[in-house]
């Protein structure tokens, strides 16, 4: 066994230019932009970007409401885009009892609005997450129903938080109450999922042959798995069924109808996981933008850091791990460090926003057709508060949102916001988790 420490994980530098001649790959799956779209209307994209351990709210919350809101320190990088920005205060998550395990609960409830079942066994149970509600409704229009991305490699094993399974922290997206949807953290793998792995094979007959081989392999697996389901006892079938439905998912994706237009990705194939946080986050940003641009998917979650993350950010000049420093007990030095980490995270989001705004699309920009939710499931990390959560929504949802305002809600469930956004995307859902209706005012001026 190779003993490599976390700091020594092979970090493949994303070398530009000299030394690594990486040809722009050809696609193996035919995915034209806006497949089958007869109208000129650009599709609405929805993405949730997450940061953990809470935010120093005094440097986040604008002091004024409405259109002329001030931009506090942490949100400063978004100032150039204030016309596309909704700052929302007053949204909350109810995460059940106050016993230990707060971070795990926060992670599990953020996109679901459901308190997770307290178990360390395999019987995890929470609820379907908002991104998957969207994916199930509109995901068939794109090759990938949704894309889950993350920047934190989970190497640690063992218990996560008193009495709760690690599954609740490893995934924030849930396809169903018991089906976690873990994110991909390796940019190279993401690239291959989006654009195919037949890179560098110039001969189309060879590519076709490989695709046919792959298809026949999948067929045989499907047949055998179905057969096996009948052979095992009823209680064991669900394990085999998990496999069968996954294979069906993949078959559908491969069979996705596209024209003959091939899409060349705008970015080079990454070599692997970059060494630093900023590089990693920005690479994920670029991949998601490429996926949106080529309409490979319209729904995504991007976890910049997992809940209760202990990642440190030496590029900021200090080596304190994130989670412990958020228990600052009001020590001004520690509070300052937390604020700087908050700013650092937000800058990566601002990088995404800036690039999205620079991509012309339809009658505007890609940003115009997006609804990007950036936030955390904890407001005050020192005391583990889940009210008045920090959340901003960037983008106009193709005209369905009227941003450029600070909206303050009376104690309202976060899931009401999600329900409203789903509605604006054309996904009509009665309820999500603990929602009580749709958050108002997002559309009026």
């Amino acid at each position, binding site marked *: 066994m190779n*003993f490599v420490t976390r700091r020594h994980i092979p970090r493949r530098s994303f070398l530009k230019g000299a030394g690594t001649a990486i040809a722009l790959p050809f696609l193996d799956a035919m995915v034209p932009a806006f497949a089958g779209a007869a109208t000129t209307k650009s599709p609405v994209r929805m993405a949730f970007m997450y940061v953990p351990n809470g935010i120093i709210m005094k440097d986040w919350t604008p002091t004024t409401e409405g259109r002329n809101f001030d931009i506090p320190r942490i949100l400063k990088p978004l100032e150039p885009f204030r016309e596309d920005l909704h700052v929302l205060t007053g949204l909350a998550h109810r995460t059940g009892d106050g016993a230990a395990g707060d971070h795990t609960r926060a992670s599990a409830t953020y996109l679901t609005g459901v308190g997770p079942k307290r178990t*360390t066994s395999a019987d995890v149970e929470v609820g379907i997450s908002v991104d998957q509600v969207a994916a199930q409704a509109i995901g068939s229009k794109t090759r990938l129903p949704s894309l889950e991305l993350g920047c934190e490699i989970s190497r640690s094993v*063992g218990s996560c938080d008193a009495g709760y399974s690690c599954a609740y922290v490893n995934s924030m997206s849930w396809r169903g109450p018991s089906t976690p949807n873990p994110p991909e953290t390796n940019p190279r793998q993401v690239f291959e999922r989006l654009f195919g792995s037949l890179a560098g094979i110039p001969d189309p007959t060879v590519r076709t042959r490989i695709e046919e081989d792959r298809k026949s392999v999948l067929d*045989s697996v499907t047949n055998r798995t179905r057969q096996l389901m009948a052979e095992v006892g009823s209680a064991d079938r669900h394990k085999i069924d998990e496999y069968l439905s996954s294979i069906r998912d993949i078959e559908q994706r491969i069979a996705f109808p596209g024209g003959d237009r091939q899409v060349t990705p705008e970015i080079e194939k990454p070599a692997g996981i970059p060494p630093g946080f900023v590089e990693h986050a920005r690479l994920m940003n670029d991949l998601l933008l490429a996926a949106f641009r080529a309409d490979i998917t319209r729904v995504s979650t991007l976890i910049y850091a997992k809940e209760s993350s202990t990642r440190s950010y030496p590029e900021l000049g200090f080596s304190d791990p994130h989670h412990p420093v958020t228990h600052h007990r009001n020590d001004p030095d520690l509070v300052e460090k937390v604020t700087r980490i908050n700013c650092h995270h937000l800058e990566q989001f601002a990088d995404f926003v800036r690039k999205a705004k620079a991509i012309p699309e339809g009658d505007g920009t890609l940003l115009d057709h997006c609804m990007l939710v950036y936030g955390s499931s904890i407001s005050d990390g020192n005391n583990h508060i889940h009210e008045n959560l920090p959340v901003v929504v960037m983008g106009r949802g193709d005209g369905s949102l009227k941003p450029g305002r600070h909206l303050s809600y009376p104690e309202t469930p976060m899931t009401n916001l999600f329900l409203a956004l789903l509605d604006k995307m054309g996904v009509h859902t009665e309820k999500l988790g603990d929602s009580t209706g749709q958050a108002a005012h997002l559309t009026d001026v």
Partner: protein
Amino acid sequence: MRYTSLILVCVAPFCIAQSSPPGATFGPFLAENCYTCHSSKAKTAGLDLEAFAGRASILEDRATGESVLRMLKTGKMPPGGMLRPREADLAAVIKKLEDAFGTSAAVTKAVSGHVPPHRLNRAEYNNTIRDLLGVDIHAADDFPQDDSIYGFDNIADALSISPLLTEKYIAAAEKIANIAVFGPELQPEPVRFDVAVPRRMETTNIVRITKPAYNSMSNYDVTGLSQPGSYHLNYQLPVTAEYVFRIIGAGNRPAGSEPTHCTFWIDGKIVKTFDIPDVSLSGFERRPDTWEARLKLPAGTHEFVVAFPRQFEGLPPRYGGPNPSKLPEPPPLDPERFRAPSTDNRPGKIEERRIAYERAKEQFAHPTWEGLSVTEFDIVGPYNHVKGASKESLQKIFICGDQQPACLRTTLSNLAARAFRRSLVAGEIDPIVKIAESAQRRSGSFERGVAVGIQAILVSPDFLFRIEKTSVSDTGPRRLTDYELASRLSYFLWSSMPDEGLMNRAADGSLKNADVLRAEVKRMLADPKSRALFDNFASEWLEVRRLESLNPDRDSFPDFDDYLRSSMQKETELFFENLVRNDGNILDLIDGKYTFLNERLAAHYGIPGVRGKEFRRVDLSGTNRSGVLGHGSVLTVSSYATRTSPVLRGKWILENILNAPPPPPPPNVPSLDATSAGTSATLRQVLEQHRANPVCSSCHTRMDPLGFSLENYDAVGSWRDKDGKFPVDSSGVLPDGRTFQGPEGLKSVLRADKDAFASALTSKLLAYGLGRGVESFDQPAIRQIVSRLPADDYRFSSLVLEIVNSSPFQMQRGAGAP
């Protein structure tokens, strides 16, 4: 015949205890301590102990009885906040319960648990691919993390499949099949290793290193291999080829030093020496130097080391090292310049100059320097790699020489049977052969047909899952088939598929024979593949897998570099492997007076006389360490980044040594303000709340004393006599009144109840081997295993054999049972 031992032998006292109603024997105890919550009226957590007591015989409700026994024995019940029963009463009740259930399985027949279809976890996938096809690329390292429960990531219930994982299985199958048949097709790529904060020799900032990793400037490792600043890496090269190794070093030597060198070692030999000419600079800036070497190396794991030899030689005479420099030394910085009159007298500036003056004076009196270290190590390659499949792969795959159609069938049948870990049923291989034949037609290549056939095999559920089939209506237990037993055995001891020998024993029916089974177990333990028991069982059981991702505070422990970290891991690995390979006494895990050290780790522990970077067995008599609780790895994973925690260490012991984990803390416990520990109060005083508050004390009186006894080991495992200003008080008092002192006292306490440890280890090893959690109906088997260990001196192989021979291991139960 194996079952005769499991059938209850009705000895008189057993019978009496079993036949008398529980109410008579246990009623008073239950009433006093349990009925508050677990009465028929309250039924907290669904448990009605009044009903239990009212039964005619204690055997009527085994599950409840075993559960009560377990809860009482581990101290989990009564819960935190409730009064504890008198120790004498508790002990008596526990004894009576144990006598009642005895060591037998149920009176009429053996019981066993149900293991659902068991997906290969990542380690198992990697190992199985290696053994099946001779391809060792660790494809599963890119798969999503497996969920772990009961402390292990090989538990069938928790191993689910997501679409992401399925995609990866499919992609991996294609990649592996192509490498196996055609050989790898790799482009040169850089792999980069960063040294996060390079180790410095002596720092010029406020923190001084109090215990450097060397003895003195004239008594140290002159090769530099064990010195701070050296770099150590074990890395697996994918293929025989040329590789470029790039080393980026930094740091400097004092002005006036003689030139020095850096040596690059591969597998214990110097392959290149780089000159470091005069690196004097006026300041203490880092100046990166880059060194490169291009070499051809065979595929496989290699050890790469970068060292700076003779680092204390050639220094200016003022520094006091051996063989001082003969070069002229520029005059040192005169501190007085900071006291010269200045025009800038703003308050901040005066303070700045004062600090600079103090520093310069210190430097003048006790000169220090940054020292040389490695900051980055890159491996770029492979260049010009050997093309074609490896000999090993070809041997495993192509068993018929020609390319006849029949050969395709033979080849794939052979592989499928090995991959599915059983014999194939008639016609089973046909669909796979069909795919392979189409692929062969499409491409015109026999090998291509084989490769696609392999792809189909590797994504088949028969490969990815270990399935011990039970039919729809099955509720009773059945004995495993020989093939199923062989699989359980090999995944238990090797985390991989059965080898040819084991499969042959399964095929000819001889695995049923107790002697044959014993011989196989011994053979498998002696095989190098049994290192999986450390990699996957011990590293999770002892939690040392977490060592990888821990970051002890750099200011408090500047000595803790990655070389120390990897050395700690290696110590525990070798200790455990020694137990397995040489069939040691499992009690050595508690207090074995030996371990395995290299110079770096020995220096860290303060153990003299260990020189060189090789690990060797070291006798610990006369030192203050023994067993795994003296290992730096264990002591570090049970601490925080900045300080020790008796609570964490106590919890570690309760969970891993005694299998009696404490319940989670009550809600709203504020976080501990430990800033005063070591400065104005001892840690013990800061944790006084745990003793004073009755809500806390019921659990903490079990945990804290265990942790306090280890307080002489700091948060990275070095011995200390003082914590800050205060001498360490390592005394402890157990809930039953026994007192003990220090780590040796702790070990005596643990040793005194060695069956508790043996039982804990048995439970954990059993759960790991079964791939399911241990249930109440497994307890008789566990007690029986533990009772047999003393007869063979608690040998590790005995423990494994007893587990393998137990009914939980040899049987599978249908899921239909209650």
